[in-house]
């Protein structure tokens, strides 16, 4: 079913110099299996078109994925002209994107 990703996933994002990080987690093992397969770096870039170079890390113990969005913040918070220079709300933006979520996970 088409629903915002945040219906089943939490997220937290922030800055490290010019890079942003975006951690996203779910609350059941089944949801994690789905998330791991669904949210590839390609998919992330499709959902967040402002992302360019992206690294993805898996943290199955936390039922979480961590993304690093390289260079999103230019030369860091003090210099960035981005609307959200510390990427604080990047995760909430991702959670608001509508995606096909298997009905049994909702």
């Amino acid at each position, binding site marked *: 079913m088409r629903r915002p990703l*945040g219906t089943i*996933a*939490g*997220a*937290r994002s*922030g*800055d*490290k*110099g*010019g*890079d942003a*990080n975006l*951690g*996203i*987690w779910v*609350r059941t093992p089944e949801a994690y299996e789905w998330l791991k397969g669904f949210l590839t770096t390609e998919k992330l870039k499709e959902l967040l078109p402002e992302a360019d170079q992206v*690294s993805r*890390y*898996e*943290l*199955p*113990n*936390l*039922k*979480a994925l*961590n993304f*690093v969005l390289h260079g999103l913040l230019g*030369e*860091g*918070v*003090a*210099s960035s*002209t981005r*609307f959200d220079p510390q990427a*604080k709300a990047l*995760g*909430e933006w991702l*959670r608001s994107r509508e995606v096909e979520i298997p009905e049994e996970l909702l």
Partner: protein
Amino acid sequence: MIRIGNASGFYGDRLSAMREQLEGGDLDVLTGDYLAELTMLILGRDRMKDSQLGYAKTFLRQMEDCLALALDKGVKIVVNAGGLNPEGLARKLGELRPGKLGELKPGELGELSPGELGELDQGDLAGRLGAKIGYVTGDDLKARFPEALTANAYLGAWEIAECLNQGAQVVVTGRVTDASLVVGPAAAHFGWARDDWDRLAGATVAGHVLECGTQATGGNFSFFTEIDATRPGFPIAEIDEDGSCLITKHDGTGGAVTVDTVTAQLLYEIGAPEYLGPDVTTHFDTIRLEQHERGVRISGTRGSPPPDTLKVCLNTLGGFRNSTTFVLTGLDVEAKAELVKRQLHEAVGDDGLTWTLARTDQKDAATEEQASALLHVTIKTTDPKRAKGFSRAAIELALASYPGFHVTAPPGDGTPFGVYKAAYVHRDEVSAKAVLL
């Protein structure tokens, strides 16, 4: 077990948190993080104006209010509020006037009445209260990176541990890793060795959870509608000898400590699962979380040796910036944006200008605000006069531009901005020191 609390996640966090943590229940150590990459730049600019400054001034205010209370309760204070000038802050703490301490309730100061206290000199007071202040220095690498406004290596836990082992009751540091504020006291308490990798990694995880204050207890939490996030309490880690811990908070405080709130904070500002620090490499993919009646148990964390290099936080002055936001209401939004762009480019040139048009406007809207789009423009330039002239140029358009011209707030004089870079140096090149006043 050692109970370590946190009372600050950044320079500007809740001022009363120190008192809340001291009064709310038992603690062995109270920590506070005051430094971010951006904070080092802010402190660097403070230091340019006055070489005596360069530390987090709010911490000094908190200590004026709470030092006697902390000493009375036997709680040790460990903070990185020293910023670029830990020695300066330590000396200020040593100068705290008894009169100010005397405003506190007499009971908090043992048998002394405020009147008696006011008559004591600082030496007597320190002797009477046993206040011992330590600081950690050696992170400043400005001599090695002369082009930078600030250059500070991220130091680790061991100098903090040494200050505590020598009896310090307040330890102030400059740039140490945020987690080291927790690792240091735990290592000192349990007598851990420098290669107790799993224990150090466990304490690093506790430190990472605590370092952003209420972000671990329901602040900025995706599922905030499921808890009462009105006024989250500050977090506490009860760390065991094996490095595992229970994340909790004082009874009666707001927010929540759940597997979800702790997961959220574990994911904050990390990269690869091998989390590199000066004390240990912590493997985030080994952390186990379990809900507990008083919070969340964290166990299983594995550590391995840290890299041979230390990270250095470099801030250089990048130039000057200024910005404003034009409100474009109703029809012809794109054409209105084009007009004001053309006008501002003619006035100040287009070099260094960044424009963003946010189409927040809705068609045929029922409120004026919903009918409006926002056009942000930022100038970045090496010329402070041009950054200032930008304001004048933008305001001079007020009666000469698109219909409905207004701005959300008038632009100011422009401010300097910094550029952050990380560098790496071999750990032998950095000589961190623990000093007791």
